[in-house]
């Protein structure tokens, strides 16, 4: 029964250890049956012996009884009970008869003993039989319990296997598949039958097939199979990366019976790794670019400095501006840095302004949240830094009567294209240089606005010394496809 219970489940996964347990039970039952059979056989032999003895005695008694009968008949005496013939006149006959009678008596006694033994032996046989029946009954019950347990175990295993996120399969040597779980057929769209033998290879990416075959070639020596390959996905038509592993199932002697394998979807991990390597590479690029910018700014500052002290002040301020914009860039994460945050950050480092960027000598008028192209942010920050520095040193913020107004808005000169227009106007500056005078402060701010911004992103800029202060305008494209799209349509004066 145990054997047939196993054989009947060929198409399901049957854990080998539970089958081994059953084999142990099976041999225990065989032992018990053998013991009972031996006991029964010896009881039967005993009975047979007793019955044979009894038959022998009965035959002997019959012979003796006949002899006595014949002796009685010879003396023509009426038939009398044999033990009452002592009065016979023939002493020899009398002696012979009495001997025969004695033998008969002994035979009867033996018969009596045998009958008793037979009764005992029959009783034993009956008990042995009863015990056998009881044991068969109890073993039948045990077997029923074991079978029920087996069915539950199998159900649990099947539930577990069906519920696994991995693609599950079984194979024999060198990747010859014998079975696959429903996960495989659902994921690949390949039928269970088609996956058998080497059929599964058809679902593997053509470029990865050789690696899979090679891995199977090494599997037995490695005592395990492991390889990565892309597997075709029915639903979306593409391929996903899978890690495939299998473990051999061995007989107690070590021979491989079959392989139990799983294929695990590692596509998300692979993609994350790729993203990570892109990010690391991007970080490298930005860091090195920043170093190059620092170097360029340093060289420019050296060229325009009149003394070491002058250089120290300028380079400190410019590095500070670069540091602030890096902070802004990293805080923004995936979002674009906005113009108003860049402006406020820069002005608050130089002038007496509140959190909104306005102050007694500073007015900011424009919508919040206008995004800037990331590649423009650093140069834009440096340009605003130079404008603010010059305003503090020579311009509107250097004199109590001066005022700085920064006004900006988003314009749409063409369909679907948006431009940020910035107007930086300083007023109330009495001591303005002539138009053709050498720029004060080395003219770095002017260079950044007039050359750097147009160079990088097609900005249109103007820079002029008006009657009572610097007037500068910047027009630059507003990037499309931004997470903050739409928020800058609302005008919010600050």
């Amino acid at each position, binding site marked *: 029964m145990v054997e047939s219970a196993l054989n009947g489940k060929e198409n399901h996964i049957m854990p080998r250890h539970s089958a081994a347990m059953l084999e142990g039970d099976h041999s225990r039952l065989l032992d018990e049956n053998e013991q009972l059979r031996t006991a029964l056989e010896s009881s039967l032999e005993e009975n047979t012996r007793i019955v044979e003895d009894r038959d022998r005695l009965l035959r002997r008694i019959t012979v003796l009884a006949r002899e006595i009968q014949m002796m009685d008949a010879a003396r023509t005496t009426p038939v009398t009970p044999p033990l009452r013939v002592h009065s016979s006149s023939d002493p020899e006959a009398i002696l012979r008869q009495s001997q025969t009678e004695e033998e008969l008596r002994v035979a009867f006694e033996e018969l009596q003993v045998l009958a008793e033994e037979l009764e005992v032996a029959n009783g034993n046989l009956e008990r042995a039989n009863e015990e056998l029946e009881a044991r068969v009954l109890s073993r039948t019950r045990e077997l029923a319990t074991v079978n029920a347990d087996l069915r539950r175990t199998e159900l649990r295993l099947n539930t577990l296997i069906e519920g696994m996120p991995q693609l599950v399969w079984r194979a024999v040597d060198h990747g010859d598949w014998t079975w696959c779980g429903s996960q495989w057929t659902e994921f690949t769209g390949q039928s269970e039958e088609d996956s058998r033998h080497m059929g599964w290879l058809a679902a593997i990416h053509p470029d990865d097939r050789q690696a899979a075959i090679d891995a199977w070639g090494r599997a037995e020596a490695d005592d395990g199979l492991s390889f990565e390959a892309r597997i075709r996905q029915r639903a979306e038509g593409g391929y996903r990366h899978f890690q495939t592993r299998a473990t051999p199932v061995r007989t107690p002697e070590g021979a491989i019976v079959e392989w139990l394998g799983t294929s695990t979807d590692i596509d998300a991990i692979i993609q994350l790794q790729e993203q990570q390597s892109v990010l690391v*590479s991007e970080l*490298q*690029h*930005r*860091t*090195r*670019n920043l*170093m*190059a*910018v*620092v*170097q*360029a*700014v340093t*060289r*420019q500052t050296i060229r325009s400095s009149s003394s070491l002290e002058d250089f120290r002040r300028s380079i400190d301020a410019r590095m500070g501006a670069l540091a602030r914009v890096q902070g802004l860039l990293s805080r923004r994460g995936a979002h674009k840095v906005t113009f108003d945050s860049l402006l406020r950050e820069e002005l608050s480092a130089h002038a007496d302004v509140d959190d909104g960027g306005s102050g007694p000598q500073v007015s900011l008028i424009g919508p919040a949240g206008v995004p800037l192209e990331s*590649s423009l942010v*650093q*140069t834009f920050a*440096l340009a605003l830094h130079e404008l603010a520095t010059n305003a503090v040193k020579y311009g509107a913020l250097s004199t109590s009567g001066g005022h700085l107004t920064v006004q900006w808005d988003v314009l749409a000169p063409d369909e679907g294209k948006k431009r940020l227009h910035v107007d930086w106007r300083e007023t109330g500056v009495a001591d303005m240089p002539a138009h053709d005078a050498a720029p004060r402060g080395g003219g770095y701010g002017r260079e*950044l606005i007039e*050359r*750097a911004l147009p*160079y*990088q*992103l097609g900005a249109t800029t103007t820079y002029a010394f008006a009657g009572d202060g610097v007037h500068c305008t910047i027009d630059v494209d507003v990037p499309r496809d931004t997470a903050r799209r739409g928020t800058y349509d609302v005008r919010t004066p600050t």
Partner: protein
Amino acid sequence: MSEHRLEGLRILVVEDEYLIADDMRNALLDAGAEVLGPVPNVAAAASLAAAEPRLDAAVLDINLGGAMVFELADTLKARAVPFVFATGYDDSAIPDRFAKVPRLEKPVKARSVLAALEPLLAQDIA
């Protein structure tokens, strides 16, 4: 060391960051070169290169505002114009066909640009 080792050579500079491009331009001018550009993107570089019959060498940044410079590099290669890459990326970002192109890691020193260009130009002349 000669201050004018690139005297009279027409060198194209492609670099999207103004401050770096300007720095590179100054270094090449100091070495006596004539600088074409600098230009900040592939389109501007391509039209400038196409309009210049005589190009002696080029310094190419690899990532130009998100666009890769390799197509332009192919054009220069076809014209037998020697060039070097100036890049913030590691080697894995560069296609195998440019394996022999000298690459200068940013921040690039003016002296290393000269050192990288000189042997290429010598080869060209020989």
